[in-house]
C-alpha cells in the first residue's frame, strides 16, 4: 500500500498531525477571550492533515540529484550515528566535567574518529579552542559556561 517514499512520509506526517490535533482539542479553555489558545493549533493540525493527504497522492517530483543525496554508503551512516553518539555523550558530560575538559576530549576524539591523522595539531586545537572560548565567554562576555572539575 505504501509504495512510494512520499506515501510513507505522508503517513508519518499524518500521525504527527493527528497526535497534535488530539492534544490541541484537549487544551483547556479560557473564558475571557474571543479567540482561545486552541484556535490556531487546530487550524494548523487540520492543515497538516490536508497537506499530508496531498503528499500521499502527489507525484514524485524529485530531481536525480535530490535522489542521489539519499545514496549514503553504509560506512558513512555508521560515521553519522557515531558522531551523534559522541555529541550525545558531549552533552551528557558537559555539566559534570565542565566545558573545557569535555570539549577538548570531544574535539580530539571526534576529529580522530573522522580520519584526522595529525595528532599533535589535533591535540593543540582541542586544548586551545575550548580554552580560548571559555575565557572569551566567562571573562569578556560575562557568560558562564560549566566550570566542572577545573579550578578556574
Amino acid at each position, binding site marked *: 500500500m505504501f509504495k512510494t517514499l512520499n506515501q510513507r512520509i505522508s503517513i508519518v506526517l499524518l500521525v504527527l498531525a493527528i497526535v497534535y490535533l488530539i492534544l490541541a482539542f484537549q487544551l483547556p479553555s479560557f473564558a475571557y477571550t474571543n479567540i482561545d489558545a486552541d484556535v490556531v493549533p487546530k487550524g494548523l493540525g487540520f492543515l497538516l492533515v490536508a497537506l499530508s493527504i496531498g503528499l500521499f497522492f502527489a507525484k514524485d517530483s524529485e530531481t536525480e540529484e535530490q535522489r542521489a543525496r539519499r545514496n549514503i554508503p553504509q560506512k558513512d551512516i555508521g560515521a553519522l550515528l557515531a558522531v551523534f553518539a559522541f555529541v550525545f555523550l558531549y552533552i551528557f558530560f558537559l555539566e559534570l566535567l565542565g566545558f573545557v575538559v569535555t570539549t577538548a576530549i570531544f574535539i580530539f576524539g571526534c576529529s580522530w574518529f573522522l580520519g584526522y591523522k595529525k595528532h599533535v595539531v589535533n591535540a593543540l586545537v582541542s586544548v586551545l*579552542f575550548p580554552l580560548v572560548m571559555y575565557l572569551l565567554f566567562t571573562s569578556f562576555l560575562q557568560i558562564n559556561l560549566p566550570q566542572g572539575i577545573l579550578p578556574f
Partner: protein
Amino acid sequence: MGSIEGILAGFQVALSLEGIMFVLIGVLVGTFIGMLPGLGPISAIAVMIPITFGMDPTPALVMMAGVYYGAIFGGSTSSILLNAPGVSGTVATALDGYPMAQQGKAGKALAIAAISSFVGGTVSVVLLMLFAPLLSSVAISFDPPAYFALMFLGLTAITSLSEGSTIKALISAVVGFMVVTIGIDPQTGTQRFTFGNVNLLEGVDFLVIALGLFALAEVCTLIINRKDLSFDNKQKLGSLKITKDEFKEMRGPMTRQSFLGFLLGVLPGAGATIASFIGYITEKRLSKNPEEFGKGSVKGLAAPETANNAATSGAFVPLLSLGIPGSGTTAVMLGAFLVLNVQPGPLLMTDRPEIFWGIIASMYIGNVFLLILNLPLIPYISKILKIPRPLLISLVIMFSIIGVYAISFNTFDLYMLLLFGVIGFLMRLFSFPAPPFILAFILGGMMEQAFRQSLTISNGSYMIFVESPIAISLLIIGLLSFLFPIIGHFRRKKEV
C-alpha cells in the same frame, strides 16, 4: 529625524572606533564562515548570536549585519576556487567563476567577484537608505489584519519560491508553525504542548532551531563528504588584474543587476539565491555572445555576484521597516534583533534611530572593508579552505553547543538541538526545504498574535480580513503566489 540627519547620525555610529571595529569583526567572521563549504549565512549568524549577549545593541547589530553580507561575499570564494558554493546564493557564481579558475585565472575571477559584489552592495545600500524610511512611514498605519496578511504573504512567497515540491515546502512551514505553538500562550497563559515539562514552558528557543536545522544538518552533509573536495595546494591564483575591456564588459551587468537584485531582495521570499540566478539568466539573454556563458564569461560572473549582494541589502528593507523577514536568513537576523531586545518595524526608525541608521551606514563601510579585505588578501584568506574537514566538523559542533548553552544554561535545550539536527538532516535527505520552517517558526508567534488581535477587534468576525483593503489585497497576492510554480511547471512541460 529626517533622512539626511538620520544617515549622518548613522555615520557617527558607524565611523566611531567601536563601530568600525565591530563592522570589521562582522565582515571578517562572515567572510570566513561563508567561505567554508556547506556553511551559509544562517549558520554564520546563528553561531555569532551568543557573542552579542550583553553587548550594546547598536554595535552588536552592526556586527551581525556584517556577518550576513560578509557570508554572502565569502561564499563566492569557495564557489570560484572549489566549485563548492558555501551559500546557495553563490551557486550561480560557480557557473562561470569555476571555469575561469580552471583556466588559471582564479585571481581574476576573485577580483571580478569582489568588485561586482562591492558595486551591488553599495548601490543597494543607497536604495535601502531611500526606501526603508519610506516603507516605514507607510507601515506605521498598518493594523493587525494588514500585519497578519503581510506575514501570510511572506510565508506563501517563500514556500512557493523554494526549490522542489511546493507541498513539501508548505508542510515544512506548517510544522515550523506548530513548533512555535509549544509553550505558554502569551495571550491566555494556557500551557500548550508542554507535556508538563518545565523546560518547554518558554517554548523552543529559535537558536535551537537555527543551529539544529542549519548548522548541525550541514555538519551531517560534511561528515558524508568529508573525504572529497580538499583545496589543491598547487592551484595558482594568477594575477588579480582586470583589463579595461573586461571592466567595460562588467559595467552593464553591474548596473542592471544592482537594481534588479535589490528589487528581488525587497520582495518576500526571493532573496540572494533567486536574484543571482535571475541575474545570470537575464544577462545571458541580453548578451551578444550567450555561448560564452558557462565557460568563464566575465559577464556571467559579474551578474550573479552583483545581484546576490544587492539582494542582501534589499532584504533589509522589509526587515528594518516592517519587522517582517522575507527569507530564512533574514528570519534568523530578526532573531538576532530580538535576542538584543530590539523590535524591528515601523517604529524602529523613530524610536531607535541610532540602530536603524547605524546599520545602514555601517553597510557602506562594511562593503569597503570587504573590497579591501578581499582584493589583496585573497591568497591568504583562501587558505581557510584547507582546514581539514574532521577538525572543521568538530569545531562547528562545538560552536553550536556553546551557542545554545549560552542562551539557556541547561542541557535540555542541547538535547533539543541534537533532535533538530537529526530532523534537519532528514529534511535534507527527503528534500523538504528548511527556510520555510525557520521563517514560519519566527513569524508564527507574531502571526498568531496579529490574527487573534484582529479577531478580538472584530469581535470574532473573520470579515475583518476581507474588509481591510490592504489585508485583502495582500492575502490575494499571497494565494496567487502559489500559481507561479504551477505556471512554471506547465511552461517546463511545454518546453520538453
